[in-house]
């Protein structure tokens, strides 16, 4: 079934790239903006700033008081948020059709005139909120900081993906109002932003509204730097052991991958599916089902643009089992995959699961708008929503083997191991009660 979500595209004279994708099945419109700034743009001593800035975008602008952005849209039936990631910051709301112009007016006010309203008080308050966000999502969770360790282990110091989006709290403490002003002037401008309208609106009406509210903003973003060159795979295994109080040992086994939207990245992602991403992956079959040395096995490939992507496998080690045994089995399975390549059934399963998850994402107007903005901002190709599955179908077993040989060799792995401390291990073996059942 070929996909044919409509993509109408226009670029305003100030550089704002706009897509309107009509869909009249629901009386809603999603407004989705991606700004070309993420944690990859942050420099040493200034980490976490893109995300802190995102919070400030809800604290008022020239004609909007602090908190009013949320209140005004929610009272009209809007559902909204914003997120920051390595490669970008996004802002989005889904509103009833009749409120789309209000949404655009609010967005234009903060994307054009934020600095009129930013205060030291708001900066201090949102810095505290972000610190609580870090405590809640990272510091106070078992294994919560594992991915931060993964980034640091896989990417060299100074590389855009070496540090996490949440950043360092010391750096946030150092952030001043002057930094907020400089950051806004450098990155927040129509020529570094894309805007998608997806839903119950025609292209003519959509372009007219965007032009009316965003047409007057000046193109003022600084020149974008070139992407980093593709990072080669790691040559010697990297290892980080953390001894913490955790319910069971957990291994994160990570690899550098080719940048997103390349044939090689797609092939490497399929390889990771076969090894650990599928419900019937080799690691699940062997470690979870047959040997039962792992409680779970998962694999993920995150496509990124700035010189590398990231792939990783997470293995939850069963209580009482040595993590080294599980890691050795992982290496064996990796070697076997490199030697024999994927089976036809594995390729079929990987494609079928990717197809369902892609179609499920597109089924929601919000996610469709986000995927359009994503590929418009980072790859200048919003049609990817329609063509991605065709590209996946074209991936061959040979490409998968070749990508795995280049990117997923055992010596190219970085392992971050969260291991229960000696005391914790004693306690666990007593409490887990695995003997009682087995």
């Amino acid at each position, binding site marked *: 079934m070929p996909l044919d979500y409509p993509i109408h595209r226009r670029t305003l004279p100030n550089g704002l790239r706009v897509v309107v994708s009509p869909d009249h099945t629901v009386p809603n419109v999603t407004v989705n903006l991606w700004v070309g700034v993420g944690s990859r743009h942050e420099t040493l001593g200034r980490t976490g700033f893109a995300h802190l800035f995102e919070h400030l975008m809800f604290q008022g602008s020239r*004609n909007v008081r602090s908190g009013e952005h949320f209140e005004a849209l929610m009272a009209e039936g809007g559902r909204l948020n914003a997120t920051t990631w390595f490669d970008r910051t996004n802002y989005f709301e889904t509103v009833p059709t009749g409120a789309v112009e209000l949404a655009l007016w609010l967005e234009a006010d903060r994307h054009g005139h934020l600095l009129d309203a930013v205060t030291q008080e708001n900066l201090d308050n949102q810095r505290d909120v972000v610190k609580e966000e870090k405590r809640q999502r990272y510091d106070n969770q078992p294994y919560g900081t594992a991915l931060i360790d993964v980034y640091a282990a896989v990417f060299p110091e100074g590389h855009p993906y070496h540090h996490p989006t949440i950043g360092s709290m010391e750096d946030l403490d150092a952030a001043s109002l002057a930094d907020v002003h400089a950051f806004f002037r450098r990155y927040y401008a129509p020529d570094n932003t894309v805007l998608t309208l997806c839903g119950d609106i025609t292209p003519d009406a959509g372009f007219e509204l965007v032009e009316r509210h965003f047409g007057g903003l000046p193109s003022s973003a600084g020149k974008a730097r070139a992407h980093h060159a593709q990072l080669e795979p790691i040559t010697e295994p990297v290892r980080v052991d953390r001894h913490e109080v955790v319910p069971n040992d957990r291994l994160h086994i990570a690899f550098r991958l080719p940048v997103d939207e390349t044939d090689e990245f797609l092939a490497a992602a399929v390889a990771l599916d076969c090894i650990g991403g599928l419900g019937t992956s080799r690691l699940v079959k062997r470690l979870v089902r047959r040997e039962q040395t792992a409680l779970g096995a998962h694999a993920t490939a995150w496509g990124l643009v700035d010189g590398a992507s990231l792939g990783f496998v997470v293995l939850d080690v069963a209580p009482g089992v040595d993590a080294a045994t599980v890691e050795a089995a992982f290496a064996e399975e990796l070697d076997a995959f490199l030697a024999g390549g994927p089976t036809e059934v594995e390729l079929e399963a990987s494609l079928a699961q990717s197809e369902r998850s892609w179609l499920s994402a597109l089924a929601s107007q919000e996610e469709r708008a986000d995927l359009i903005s994503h590929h418009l901002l980072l790859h200048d190709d919003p049609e990817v929503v329609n063509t991605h599955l065709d590209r996946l179908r074209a991936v061959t077993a040979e490409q998968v083997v070749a990508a795995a040989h280049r990117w997923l060799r055992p010596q190219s792995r970085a392992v971050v191991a969260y291991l229960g401390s000696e005391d914790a291990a004693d306690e666990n073996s007593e409490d887990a009660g695995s003997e009682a059942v087995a």
Partner: protein
Amino acid sequence: MSLVRPQVAPPRPWTYPVAAEHLMGNGVRVLAHDLPGQYVLSLRVVVPTALSAEPPGKEGIAAMTARLLDEGTSAHDAEAFAELMERRGMVLGAGVSDGGLLVDVDVPKRHLETAAGLVREAVADAIFPETEVRRILRNRLAEIEQERASASHRAAKELARTLWAPGERAALPTGGTRETVGALTRDDLVEFHATSVGPQGATVVVAGDLTGVPVAEVLEGTLGTWSAPRHRQVPPPAAPVPAPDAARVVVVDRPDSVQTEISVGRPGPDRSTPHGWAPHPVISFVLGGSPSARIDAVLREEKGYTYGIRSAFRPRVAGGSFVTAGSVRSEVTGEAVEILLTILDGAARAGFTDDELRAGVDYVAKTAPGRYATADAVADETAALALERLPLDFTTRTLRALPGLTRDDLDAAYRRVARGEWTVVLVGDAGTIVPALEGRVAGPVVTVDL
């Protein structure tokens, strides 16, 4: 240049999608939602049961039965079954609530028949192989440890244990405890499956783009052949009885925690409440549904103590709760709890404002078309209606009741729940928390181990 703030045109009237209803030969009710453009179909199977009818000492058996449905059938072993699903892009989950078992499947449109056939196999012909039983039970025991390590899970468990009377099923985790799961055998599971999982009273929901899909034919040929001769329906569950000493503060000691997880609860209604459900989501929104809601306006936007605290009514099939939950940094726990309880009690004392009523009603009513825009969301809601034994026009009727709500309706609904007595659970560093609570909370503070 800035333009004048635009006016908002009122939304068109909207109703929840109407399902086509059909009764299959074996008595299973089918509810089909044709949603053009939704190419991934959502299939749900609802089997009414009552968690309270689990054999004493074997709590968790229903949840473990659900998890084992696709781990080996008379036709396929667990690996073969998983492979069949995966090659068709199908994903299956199964779980239980207080009032039933729910199987949850998403699958691309062209594979509906395969998926429905596999679901029939799972619910009808699961054989509970000994090795899979051992593995799933062992994984549940490990999961219990993982839940203990997570502050939010640990808080939810302690809240249930404190809020509901001893002996109430609701006081224990749905998936059972170390003791009760440890007591389960394969024979228990086989027997429970044979007598508790069957087509009597069951409902199948299918939602998505059904153009060209012969739904009745596909389902008759698959789930329509489901039979379970020993299946017997049990009476619907009753609302759990609150504990006589529920109004107290329990600190779960989680040494060195940088935050305190706060969970404040009270018994609440289910969605069939004779007073009407409509005020409840409005109250949730006004108190704890956004950064501008009463709680976060103070604890997040003014004080910066939290990333966000949410309040919500949590209806069960029978009864329910009203829970406010979130985390604050450890040092401010005492002050944060005092502020939070003051806000919760203050709303009961002084009532809600006209602005709050309007904003909350508009939010809940006007977000409905978007909240129910995907096959997945519609299938979930219709399955919930079936599980809760609610009429199929419930969702639309509740939405229609919203514009007529008054401040008195909101105040009355909230005062039925908020009586100045709360169950407060705090998961964090007891050494920091307990002294800080002195003079800030009423009654004794009990500390328990993680």
